[in-house]
């Protein structure tokens, strides 16, 4: 177990190094003037562009620039200035991420519960009604673009029914939150509202979360249902399941104790895939619902050619992805001893 985790941990910095090289290589497609934008914090500096290029060595050989850039990013934690967020990239990530965390958190739970339940049910009742329903459901949502689904939800549940408005809070609640009477503990709005004892803020936050969560859930659940189903079918064919049945155990015991536990092992890996998928999915969902998280900021920065913003966003998401995968690998080895011994 220790050597397995050790090997994963050794790979981690290698991948991280590769990510920085990739991002830096992409940046080299830009002219020095555009890269200099990262160091500009007010309009007056625009006249001093050549001096800035000189000062930060943007006309130096590539490898020297890379080392300088890396030093800037890792030693000083300086990712540049984001034009779209009007603050340094590092602070921008800090201020946008809690909203995204809230969104992914509330989407992740229903995705795992409904996905696993529907997948197992479909496998156990193979070729029955529930199997067909889950099949149609899964292939439809795999084919529907997330933004079309999101726009439909927005049209119906906000435009028509006025249930789930876009944004993060309504005007009145937002003013209250900013008034100073509200203390931010975690910057996750629903939790903060409860900690402050302000139920009306909590309810308003939930109302605003419902639309994006519904969008993310529906889109991501399809894959989980498919994989749980085929994994469960595979397990149901195993000898130990037949043995359990031959011993005369009740069917629920066979399914829940013998089969499902083993069928859930691939689902652990899948949970990290789902997490990564959610991080990609928030770009579209947050843009549609005007939800102030890092996804909307990243898309907006890309649109406005705010290069420091985009690259900072991408590196942050990559770091989360790599850590998510690492966690999944470790959990996988923990639950499946065969992996450790390989």
């Amino acid at each position: 177990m220790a050597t397995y985790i050790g090997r994963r941990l050794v790979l981690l910095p290698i991948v991280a190094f590769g990510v920085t090289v990739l991002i830096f290589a992409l940046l080299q497609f830009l002219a020095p003037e555009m890269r200099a934008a990262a160091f500009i914090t007010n309009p007056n500096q625009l006249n001093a562009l050549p001096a800035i290029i000189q000062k930060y060595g943007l006309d130096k050989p590539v490898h020297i620039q890379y080392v300088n850039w890396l030093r800037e990013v890792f030693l000083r934690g300086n990712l540049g200035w984001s034009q779209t967020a009007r603050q340094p990239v590092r602070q921008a990530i800090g201020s946008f991420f809690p909203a995204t965390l809230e969104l992914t958190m509330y989407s992740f739970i229903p995705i795992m519960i409904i996905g696993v339940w529907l997948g197992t049910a479909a496998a156990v009742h193979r070729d029955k009604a529930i199997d067909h329903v889950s099949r149609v459901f899964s292939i439809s949502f795999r084919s529907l673009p997330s933004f079309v689904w999101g726009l439909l939800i927005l049209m119906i549940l906000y435009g028509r029914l006025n249930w789930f408005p876009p944004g993060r809070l309504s005007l009145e609640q937002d003013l209250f939150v900013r008034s100073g009477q509200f203390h931010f503990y975690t910057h996750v709005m629903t939790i903060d509202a409860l900690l402050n004892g302000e139920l009306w803020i909590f309810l308003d936050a939930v109302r605003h979360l419902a639309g994006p969560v519904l969008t993310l859930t529906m889109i991501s659940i399809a894959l989980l249902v498919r994989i749980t189903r085929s994994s469960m079918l595979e397990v149901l064919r195993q000898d130990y399941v037949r043995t359990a049945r031959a011993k005369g155990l009740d069917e629920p015991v066979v399914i829940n104790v013998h089969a499902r536990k083993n069928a859930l092992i691939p689902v652990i890996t899948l949970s990290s895939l789902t997490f990564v998928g959610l991080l990609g999915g928030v770009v579209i969902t947050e843009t549609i619902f005007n939800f102030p998280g890092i996804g909307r900021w990243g898309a907006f920065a890309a649109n406005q050619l705010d290069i420091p913003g985009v690259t900072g966003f991408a590196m942050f998401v990559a770091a989360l992805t790599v850590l998510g995968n690492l966690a999944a690998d470790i959990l996988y080895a923990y639950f499946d001893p065969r992996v450790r011994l390989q």
Partner: protein
Amino acid sequence: MGLLSAAVRGVQVNRTRLLPLAGIVAACFAAALVLPATRDRVLRYPLAIAEFILLALFVIAFWTIPSDFTRRMRRNPLSVAGFSIIVLFVAIAALAPILAPPPATSRDAYLIPQEGFSSDPKPPQVRHPFGTTEGQYDIYYGIIWGTRTAFRVSITVIAISVVIGLFLGGISGYYGGRLDEIIMRLTDVFLAFPGLVLAVVVVAVLGRSLDNVMIAIAIVNWPVYARLLRGDILGIRSRDFVEAARALGGNDFRIIFRHIIPNAIYPFLVFGSLDVGLIVLTAAALSFLGLGAEVGYADWGMLINLSRNWILGAPGNPFAYWYVVIFPGAAIFLFVLGWNLLGDAFRDILDPRLRGSS
């Protein structure tokens, strides 16, 4: 050549069944030539008609090849549905200039004609069967020509990914060792980003254009292909026929390209066809975010992006502009659905282990 001769045989075997089909197609063309409204269009684009007939023949031939594969395909209603949807889109793409003739003054047929500059979308009417978007781009025209864009994007991306995947995956799987380690860590780096995020960065840096969208999606996609081929090659490398080729003095290049890749490429190509749906979805998402083709280019995601400000409708009438989402959205959905249905059927047929389990 093998496919062609098999197809000819298929046509011969199924002659009686094919006759009514050919008759219907011929009748449609005759009708189109007789009706004055459509005659001009048909006569103006003989090339599109020729393309269409060629494709139709190819499709019919493929469908009637007497083999286990096509027999299973024909028996499964889902794969028939998927196949029909794809054929429909192929027909639309081939006949695009006839279904939606570009205006005489247009410099590029892919640019959607614009009628006026009024900002609010206009509902479906005779001149614009699916309505218009913000800025008066015709949605019908955009959907018809967008079919060609969708095919172009997916074919280009798959071609690039397959070439890179073949090269790197082949080296990695065949030589193993340190080279394998390096290439696999390289794929790790590219897979450390959610696909859409990396694509967004690449388009933001390279600039906004359809070519860059294709490059971006190919950059996101190739590692999957490289890993797939590597895995296949690892299984094949130690097989007897490879040993035999080596014993006969074949060099590495010859062994890889003549013996290993032809034996590993089949699942690889099937995977490519499954991937079309995902590629089109990513391209549409990029366009929707405003990171796709130039404004006014026939592209499904772009059509929705153009009218994004209007989807909440007018006061008192929330669905006033339903057509700006529904028509392009349905086009993307059907296209991707067709490929997914076909892909599931392919997998069911070609992978006996999974047969009936997905």
